[in-house]
């Protein structure tokens, strides 16, 4: 029996006033309903990016009476007994599922944290927007009882090794071009839903979350001498769609579901608060090795243009066999929805496109369909500023603070990149080590089995 995907974006009909501002930010027109009447989400179209959750301002007013009690509403959302206002657009979380597992002290748990979480988590504890707190985040996760605190950033470096090699292979040996990134599950679902004929253009690489998951239950389990079956694998994500990605039935290369549960940044904050951990007072602690070691290239995956920049840092050297002159590829950074950059690698002029905001990709996909695409590689992130602006990130009370938050989270991300000793994925010593000891080579047999996937048209 096919396992049901976790489809979790909902609108509370009792709180929704039908203002339809959510439909303005929905990239796939999945929000349906008459103006002034409660809206609903068309699950067949929804890519679960959660931008509607972020923009919704229709809250539970203390001056109105509702048929549904607050505790019922919290239960529907899988939220703990918090006192914050509740809004009409929401996602069903996994708070209780993870809390229960953590209470079992015999459980061998491994956790990973997406790059965008370390630049936003502190906001939920009153610290300035965009505060950079990887060390405190690790300390909090250890106090919550996770046995190993690993990092999605390590897997982002691994993604670059595989995806960079895949791109070079498609260019030199032939394969579907242009190639599209596959890190953003909402983007992947969009291609499967709306452009199934372009599926071959998606990189076959799993996203960093799923690569980390499969490494946890294979290499990670063997390091600790535990059976994959005993490992509880959790991902902390800025994203609401990552929950759905983790629940895809094919995501079990280790023999078990590679990621057992995904918590958003907001849900992690609930766990920390409920455990009465004083976040602001925590010391700085380090990720566990080897699956927590990362380069600056791994951490910039959290912003639009980051996957492209990380890929260029490595692909340039793969193609030219020489180090790139300036590791800061600032030309691919920026706010515009579509950015086109050509990289001179001598014999080959590598043409790249970076897209943020899913709506902006449609004209480009139309070009690809008509055979008019004039580029090799395209990065797409669904959310407006990349993962730092994801649906699972701290929700701002006022729209004006949303813009400020994106700006600060972005500059903290680039600051964190510059702080790293290693700036390129292929220079990460634990990446070199995992290929030597376990994976063999990029695109090799083991990589193919554990780090790559396939996609299915939805229709």
């Amino acid at each position, binding site marked *: 029996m096919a396992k049901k995907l976790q489809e979790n974006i909902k609108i509370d009909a009792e709180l929704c006033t039908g203002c339809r501002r959510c439909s303005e930010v929905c990239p796939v027109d999945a929000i349906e309903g008459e103006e002034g009447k409660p809206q609903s989400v068309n699950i067949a179209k929804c890519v679960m990016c959660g931008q509607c959750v972020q923009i919704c301002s229709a809250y539970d007013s203390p*001056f109105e009476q509702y048929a549904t009690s607050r505790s019922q509403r919290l239960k529907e959302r899988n939220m703990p007994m918090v006192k914050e206002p509740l809004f009409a657009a929401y996602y069903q979380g996994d708070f209780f599922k993870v809390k229960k597992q953590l209470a079992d002290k015999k459980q061998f748990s491994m956790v990973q944290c997406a790059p965008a979480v370390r630049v936003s988590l502190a906001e939920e504890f009153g610290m300035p927007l965009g505060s950079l707190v990887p060390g405190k985040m690790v300390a909090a996760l250890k106090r919550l009882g996770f046995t190993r605190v690993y990092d999605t950033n390590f897997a982002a470096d691994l993604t670059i090794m595989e995806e960079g090699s895949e791109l070079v292979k498609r260019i030199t040996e032939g394969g579907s071009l242009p190639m599209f990134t596959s890190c953003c599950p909402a983007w992947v679902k969009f291609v499967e839903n709306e452009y199934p004929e372009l599926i071959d253009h998606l990189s076959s690489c799993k996203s960093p979350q799923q690569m980390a998951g499969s490494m946890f239950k294979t290499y990670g389990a063997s390091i600790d001498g535990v059976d994959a079956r005993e490992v509880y694998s959790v991902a902390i994500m800025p994203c609401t769609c990552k929950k759905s990605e983790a629940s895809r039935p094919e995501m079990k290369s280790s023999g078990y579901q590679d990621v057992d549960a995904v918590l958003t940044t907001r849900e992690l904050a609930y766990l920390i608060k409920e455990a009465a951990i004083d976040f602001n007072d925590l010391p700085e602690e380090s990720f566990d090795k080897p699956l927590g070691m990362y380069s600056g290239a791994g951490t910039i995956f959290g912003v639009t243009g980051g996957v492209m920049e990380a890929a260029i840092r490595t692909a340039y050297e793969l193609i030219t066999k020489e180090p790139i002159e300036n590791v800061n590829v600032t030309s691919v950074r920026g706010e515009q929805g579509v950015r086109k950059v050509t990289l001179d690698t001598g014999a080959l002029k590598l043409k790249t496109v970076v897209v943020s905001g899913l709506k902006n990709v449609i004209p480009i996909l139309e070009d690809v369909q008509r055979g008019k695409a004039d580029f090799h590689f395209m990065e797409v992130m669904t959310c407006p500023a990349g993962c730092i602006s994801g649906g699972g990130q701290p929700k701002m009370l006022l729209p004006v603070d949303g813009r400020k938050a994106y700006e600060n989270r972005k500059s903290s991300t680039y600051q964190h990149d510059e702080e790293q000793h290693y700036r390129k994925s292929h220079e990460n010593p634990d990446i070199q080590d995992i290929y030597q000891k376990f994976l063999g080579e990029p695109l090799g047999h083991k990589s193919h089995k554990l780090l790559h996937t396939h996609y299915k048209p939805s229709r």
Partner: protein
Amino acid sequence: MSRNLNSFVLADSKKCIGCRVCEVACAVAHLDTEIKTVGNMNFSLNPRLYLVKTPEITMPVQCRHCEDAPCLKSCPVSAIKEQSNRIVIDEAGCIGCKSCIIACPFGAIELIVSRQEAMGDDPEVIASKCDLCGGAPACVKACPREALQYVDMVKEGTQRRIAAANMMSGFHNEFMVREG
């Protein structure tokens, strides 16, 4: 005797979409500590304007800062005052008797649990209403549809008279030309 009329915030039901951004902005503007994210709120949002949504109409209602304010007159402890062209509630003086709520024809006053007291064992209930944010209302600034207007009665009168004069001079000239 001439005096300046009180200002107030007025909503346009034709522009209002009912999103409640004004309510959220109002509640945030009246917090006693700076809070930016929803996750940092450990109490409900207490706005001082209220979205009205019926099958016929969608718009927020708030205090009109009446010239002959019934709330002010109804207050038995004189906790409602007129100050710099606004009707304001002295929260420290309020005894929570609800007379002002009964007196207000707009339903613009609500009783809320004061935050400081809510933290202790003896919650204090006080009357709460629009105070015009000291002249730059947060609701007006936050509305994504520009459906709210801060009506400054002095400027409003002057502006309307200028517009009327311009319009009438046009009519007049046209009339004169035709006459001639």
